[in-house]
């Protein structure tokens, strides 16, 4: 019974997905084709959340800032004419130092707002969005010398709403080309992307076993004890944030190379919410999450994402309801996880006060 309740969240979610699949009469082939693409392009973003959770920082809503770093690199690569897998590699290379700087800034903020890292990360994401708009909508082409008629708005400054990424589209997905025929249509199997995801999973697991990883775990369990034991808590918190931000930048680039277009001013906005909701539907919590949960959560959440509008259309005759429903589920899942976490923390504190 205890075992069941521990897995209540993913079981409930799987049941919801199954109900939707049956209601909308979705074929396994269609679902498989959607999942191949979505799991390949979203997993790294979800994995980027794990290290801050280990370090006791909670859910890093600041990965939006990492995604922005990835987009800065994508824009530069298109401008400089990089293409194919080499262009993609350059994008990762450029994104890295940008993400490190952003991560240092976010980590510094988190250290100034201990105990409020999550809300600070969320607001920092909104703030960074304003700064991003200032740079790409106004400064570029006017203050920053950047003249590319294909990318800049006709007025001479500001980037267009979309940046065409066809030059690096499928750069990773098609590195090992594989197609299967299913129900009469060609289906792309992004083998290389899955290899990348597996490498990141293994790297995260290996990181957990390093000295730094163990220090982060100790900090996550009790920061005061960790500090007394001589662990440089503030420095390690910054490192954890930087790692998370860099992973998010790489993950966003992996996502964009599959999509093939960058919505200059919107692509990053939902990244945090969807990655966090995906992680949480697996039964992960604000203070404990594993690599396996990250992958399971990505599969479950994106199944619902695909199924929900179709089920809404089949059940109520309106796809809009399904779209509202999946946004509602994403927010509700995050809310429930936050409530459960805070509830437990408050109870522990109350019991400590009694002693």
């Amino acid at each position: 019974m205890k075992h069941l309740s521990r897995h209540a969240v993913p079981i409930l979610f799987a049941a919801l997905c199954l109900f939707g699949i049956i209601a909308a009469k979705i074929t396994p082939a269609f679902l498989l084709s959607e999942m191949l693409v979505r799991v390949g392009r979203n997993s790294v973003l979800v994995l980027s959340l794990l290290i801050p959770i280990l370090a006791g920082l909670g859910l890093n809503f600041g990965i939006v800032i990492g995604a922005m770093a990835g987009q800065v690199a994508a824009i530069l690569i298109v401008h400089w004419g990089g293409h194919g897998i080499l262009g993609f590699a350059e994008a990762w290379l450029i994104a890295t130092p940008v993400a490190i700087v952003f991560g240092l800034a976010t980590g510094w903020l988190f250290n100034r707002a201990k105990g409020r890292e999550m809300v600070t990360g969320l607001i920092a994401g909104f703030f960074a969005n304003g700064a991003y708009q200032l740079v790409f909508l106004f400064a570029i082409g006017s203050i920053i010398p950047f003249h590319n008629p294909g990318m800049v708005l006709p007025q001479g400054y500001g980037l267009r709403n979309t940046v065409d990424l066809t030059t690096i589209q499928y750069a990773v997905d098609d590195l090992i080309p594989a197609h299967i025929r299913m129900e009469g249509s060609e289906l792309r199997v992004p083998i290389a992307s899955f290899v990348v995801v597996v490498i990141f999973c293994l790297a995260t697991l290996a990181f957990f076993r390093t000295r730094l990883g163990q220090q982060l775990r100790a900090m996550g369990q009790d920061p005061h004890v960790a500090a007394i034991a001589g662990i440089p808590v503030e420095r390690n918190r910054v490192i954890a944030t930087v790692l998370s931000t860099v992973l998010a930048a790489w993950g966003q680039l992996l996502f964009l190379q599959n999509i093939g277009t960058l919505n200059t001013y919107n692509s990053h906005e939902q990244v945090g919410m969807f990655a966090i909701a995906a992680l949480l539907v697996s039964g992960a919590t604000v203070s404990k999450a594993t690599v396996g949960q990250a992958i399971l959560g990505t599969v479950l959440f994106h199944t619902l994402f695909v199924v929900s509008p179709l089920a809404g259309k089949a059940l109520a005759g309106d796809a809009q309801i399904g779209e509202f429903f999946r946004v509602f589920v994403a927010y509700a899942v995050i809310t429930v996880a936050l409530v459960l976490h805070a509830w437990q923390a408050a109870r522990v504190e109350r019991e400590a006060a009694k002693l």
Partner: protein
Amino acid sequence: MIARVRSIAREAGIPRLLIAAFVVVLFSVAAATHMNLGSLITDSIVRVARNGVLVLALLPAIQGGLGLNFGLPIGIICGLIGCVFSLNANVGGVSGVLLASAIGTGLAVPAGIAYGWLLNRTRGQEMMVGTYLGFAIVSGMSIFWLLAPFTNPTLVWAIGGKGLRTTLSLGGIYDKVLDRWLSFTVAGVTVPTGALLAFFAICFLVWWFFRTRMGISIAAARGNSRFARAAGISDERTRIQASVLTTVLAAIGIVIYSQSYGFVQLYTAPLLMAFPAIACILIGGATVTRATITNVLVGTFLFQAILTVALPVTSQVIEGDISETARLIIQNGMILYALTRTGGRRG
């Protein structure tokens, strides 16, 4: 002399001084370029009256120890339901506003009790829980607006005949009834007397409330919960009272906002409404743990004046609308500043 300047700066807070200076610069540019100052000031005042109660709604939450109430949309939704019912019943004029506020309040009281109960069990994470609870309720209510069995043809989509529209026009019902009541024009500035009076009256009520026995106990419990318990005040109880008050004020606030704006905005519109309101009260000098009516008045005026004047002034210099970008940076920069201030840190 320098010490005095420094103490004044500390008193007023550096961000507040910077933003006040920014407002002065914007108005000077507007005056120097012969823009219509009268209409700019009119717009600023109208927006203060429009947003004021929503900003005021944050005060009880801060005073009650709940922190910045990012869950403001919970109360806003209650007010919106009130608006929709009053529109459906076709009640116009001031009585329409009163009916909407009454229904909104009626819903906000139980909603506030439930919200406060939840916040009591999630101490230390009130802001995060409030944010996401608000998001979840707004998106859940989107489904409700779509499925709600309203049939009044002015409210539902013309095609299909069901599902409420995204924006409901108040034209001819209670569009600007408060704004227009006793309004007058002096030197090119039109004053929306009724709406301002309503705002000031509610401010006075809240000010007065915090001088009653209940109000004092709410503020006392925030200060030191153990001390309060020794004095016979349960802070669990006062926190719920604060949460009810903030939710009720948000419900009334959105009704006043809608009548001034002329439209009731449904679906995702309330999603991010807490953030500009929070920026207002912080610009006014409030912290995560302390706020006054003066903070509300000063902050609302400064932030709304920037939003009003920034667009026409900057559009003379550059094409395109930079005011939305400026709003994002000022608003969220201000909230970040408040969250990271050591003085505002919880024990």
